[in-house]
């Protein structure tokens, strides 16, 4: 029986006539890392701020550790938050930054400093306590921000696009650090990002959002392999969306005819680019071939449809104009709404 750390019940957040979050409900278990993923303006950051208490819901309830905190301001919730800009206090040293929270909450000064030292040790910043934030590298600043957020053992740790200010090359390392830290301390964490690759890499579960509503909730594998809608399929990874029709247990589109267990009628199906195989000689034409180092990417035309196909670099290369045959395993075809 897992314990519920965070729960949203029919939460609505309006700004004037605009609705940022439109009646969403979900719950997050203790120790879980959940990502809010979606395009900008989908309500993911607002949802995070609703958990933090930086926004209060217009309707519905926000519960943390079983307690309804819908009307409590941020200062009265036990949350830690890592901001996109880190938001380190530039006029305080690293130690003062980390000891700020405990001091505010009434911990004696010496004790607060001890705790700050201990946490800084844990995140590998021992020896930098007396520096000002401006004297640290970006990665170090980020670790200070994390240390500052977890020093008070929060009920939940919130990340607002924490990697957007990190060098592209470092991102992989930093996100592994975050994941490692979250596991080591057994923290419940909520993570906001618009980068689907980042979301897939760090999350236990992902909440995909669209226009203030939840499009789908699931583990990374579930979302990738069983997207519930064309939107999710398209947003997570690359996907071919194929408009077709089902007749007599077969899916028809262009010259494809694949067995499928579905009722007759018009449908949309998706298939991942790497699930399509190409055999030389056929009626489809390669429109373009791009060399991407680790793989080849082809755009293939079959009658009025275009397919994006991704093949390992080890396979024989094809070039634009080549005739190919599209081979699709019916099991890889997913019908979506």
């Amino acid at each position, binding site marked *: 029986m897992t314990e519920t750390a965070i729960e949203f019940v029919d939460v609505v957040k309006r700004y004037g006539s605009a609705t940022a979050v439109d009646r969403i409900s979900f719950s997050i278990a203790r120790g879980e890392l959940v990502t809010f993923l979606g395009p900008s303006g989908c309500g993911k950051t607002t949802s995070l701020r609703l958990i933090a208490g930086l926004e209060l819901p217009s309707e519905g309830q926000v519960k943390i550790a079983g307690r309804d905190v819908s009307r409590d301001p941020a*200062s009265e919730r036990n949350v830690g938050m890592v901001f996109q800009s880190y938001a380190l206090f530039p*006029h305080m040293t690293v130690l003062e930054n980390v000891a700020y929270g405990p001091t505010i909450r009434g911990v004696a000064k010496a004790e607060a400093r001890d705790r700050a030292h201990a946490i800084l040790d844990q995140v590998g910043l021992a020896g930098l306590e007396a520096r000002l934030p401006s004297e640290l590298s970006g990665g170090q600043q980020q670790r200070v921000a994390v240390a500052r957020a977890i020093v008070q053992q929060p009920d939940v740790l919130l990340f607002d696009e924490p990697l957007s200010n990190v060098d592209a090359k470092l991102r992989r390392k930093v996100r592994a650090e975050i994941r490692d830290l979250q596991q080591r301390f057994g923290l419940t964490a909520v993570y906001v990002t618009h980068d689907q690759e980042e979301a897939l890499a760090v999350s236990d579960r992902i909440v995909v959002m669209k226009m203030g509503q939840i499009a789908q909730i699931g583990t990374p594998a579930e979302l990738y392999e069983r997207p519930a809608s064309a939107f999710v399929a398209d947003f997570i990874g690359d996907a071919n969306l194929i408009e077709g029709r089902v007749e007599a247990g077969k899916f028809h589109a262009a010259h494809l005819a694949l067995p499928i267990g579905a009722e007759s009628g018009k449908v949309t199906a998706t298939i991942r680019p790497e699930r399509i195989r190409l055999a030389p000689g056929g009626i489809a034409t390669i429109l373009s071939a791009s060399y991407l180092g680790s793989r080849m990417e082809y755009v293939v035309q079959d009658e009025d449809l275009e397919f994006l196909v991704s093949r390992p670099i080890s396979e024989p290369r094809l070039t634009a104009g080549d005739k190919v045959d599209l081979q699709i395993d019916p099991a890889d075809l997913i019908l979506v709404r």
Partner: protein
Amino acid sequence: MARISLTSDRAGAAWLGLLALSLTALPWYKGAGLLAGPAASALAEALSGRGWFWPLIAAALALGAVALTRGWQVSRLALGLTLAAAFLYVWQGFAVGLRGPSSDWVGGVFARAAEGQTGLGWGGFLAGVALVGLLSDLVAARGFCRGERFASFCITAIVALLTTFVFFPILKLGLAAFVDTEGNLALATFWARLSAPDLWGVACFTGGGRCGVVVNTVVLGVLSATLATALGLALALLVNRTDFRMKRALRAISILPIITPPFVVGVAIILLFGRTGLVTGFVADLMEVRPTRWVYGLPGILIAQVLAFAPVTFLVLLSTLEAINPTLEEASRTLGARAMTTFRTVTWPLLRPGLAAAFLLAFIESLADFGNPIVLGGGYEVLSVKIFFAVVGARYDLGNAATLAMILLALTLIAFWLQMRWMGKKSYVTVTGKSDAGLAAPLPPILKIGVLAVVLPWVLFTLAVYIIIAVGGFVTDVGRWDLTPTLGHLSTAFRFEFAETGLELYGSAWDSMITTLWVAGIAAPLTTLVGILTAWLVARQDFAGRRAFEFGTMLSFAIPGTVVGVSYVAAFNVPPVDITGTAAILIICFIFRNMPVGMRAGLAALAQIDKSMEEASQTMGAGGGTTLRRVVLPLIRPAVFTALVYSFVTAMTAVSAVIFLVSARHNMATAYIMGRVEAGEYALAIAYSAVLMIVMILCVVVIQFLVGTRKLGRRQELQGRTAAEPAE
């Protein structure tokens, strides 16, 4: 987490406790010392027959009962009862005036109302505070300000203060315009006052006689604003678009008018251009003409105002020029336009919004100006001076003063509205946040000559005026070119001796100087506090009615000082808040006159600071107050410094509002100087002004030392770096 819900209960309960205390244990009326205690409390007064307290006491009791229930802070009943109590609190103050009940039914119900009542004392004051606190707590519990109690309290308190000290007096003054000398409603009297020929006459244009005072005021305002804008533009072009060497000196000169006490520039102009003035005499000898009194009236006021307002327009236009992206002018040049064509077709159109803003600013200042017209006006009457004489002169007529004040206010608000509308539109600011490559195009040579032709006479003239101010107080008679050094004037004002009893101050100016320093010293930090707090609320808190709140605070800035002064006379001469004649009214007046400047400084500084730092502080458990103190204030110290200095200096040199509010016990330096000018004691006035300026400069240095701006450069840099580019 139990601790937290306890504190929220405690906050509401504490305000309720204060309410109970103020109603039962403290003297309600002013005059009674704190020691009078419960015997003079509202409860005791109610028991002894002053029954108009009962409704308020009943509401407070009901609130106490509701507070015993669980979750009372979010109940509609508690909110309703608090609003009712607030209404009854205000009602009891106005139901019974100084000399009796304000309406017949109140007199009928409460017999003792006939005795009247005096103003609020400790009990009355704290009851108001408690109600504001309670209200803020209850609305915060319902989600106002995201449930942030501190912010909620600040907003409620500032709204209550603005209502009491800005809008209530104006309302009261507006009502006074419709009332005759007996206090009865008299629309006919109002109409007679409003349509009086000495207000609207235009005879001066047709050649026969004088114009009305309203026409005079507008003509002066338009001329003054036009000339000040032209001069400001010339200065701005010189600084921004030429290789002129003395830029720093120009900037320094432009600060002078801010620390120059009123009247003294007028006096210097009289000493230069009056009938026996230095320049007048020189020109008369040279040209063999009879010296005249030409400077008194429109020309004199105009000269003084242009001198005073040019620095303001200069700063506005300088920032406009600096905001023009040089690449636009470069584009024009590469397309083949000559320098003059580029200026005419690119630079000038981009400048227009700035010109309009500068013009309206100077126009509003000219409308509000009191010091120059009263010294140099002669027979040329303007509204601010006429209002003054309607209240302070021999013919006391508050109704007439109120009518004139309403006209002046209407003119100002129209200009203010135009300004807001103009600023509200997307101005042609071409700053993109990217660094602009290229240098501003230098001014075409013809324009440069024109600009110098305007600026150099101005520099000479300013120098002449300030030389008069610098030496006038310390020579026998600068007006007759008797330059024998003397400390006589200074000694009249500031003589002191070390007697056996200690330091003895004999000079006639000591009283007003000491009062001025005290009042300015108390007002400055309070003004800064209210101003910065308001800026923080507007910039950082998201609450219902934020725009109205912002507009209200800005509006209070637009009200001319003369109108504020006369409205305070109208509102605070009588209970429930009768504070005329005290030092408090001076301090309060300064706080609400100058607070918008602190607010602007604060807004500008806050715009530079990443909001998420405050949010970080909140998520770490700090409430609004702690966040403000430990995170925000350290980061906006330059703005705090600016606000402190400005409010201090303005309090030292302000005249238009205080002139109505000074009393024999609490006289201000500017009022004293005005008295000396009226008596023709110019040298004394100049000596005092010079001392005042030196004192101000010293105080600014002390403030700078106390607030400490030394480390700031580095901090700003740090902040910029962490927020903008946390690169690895």
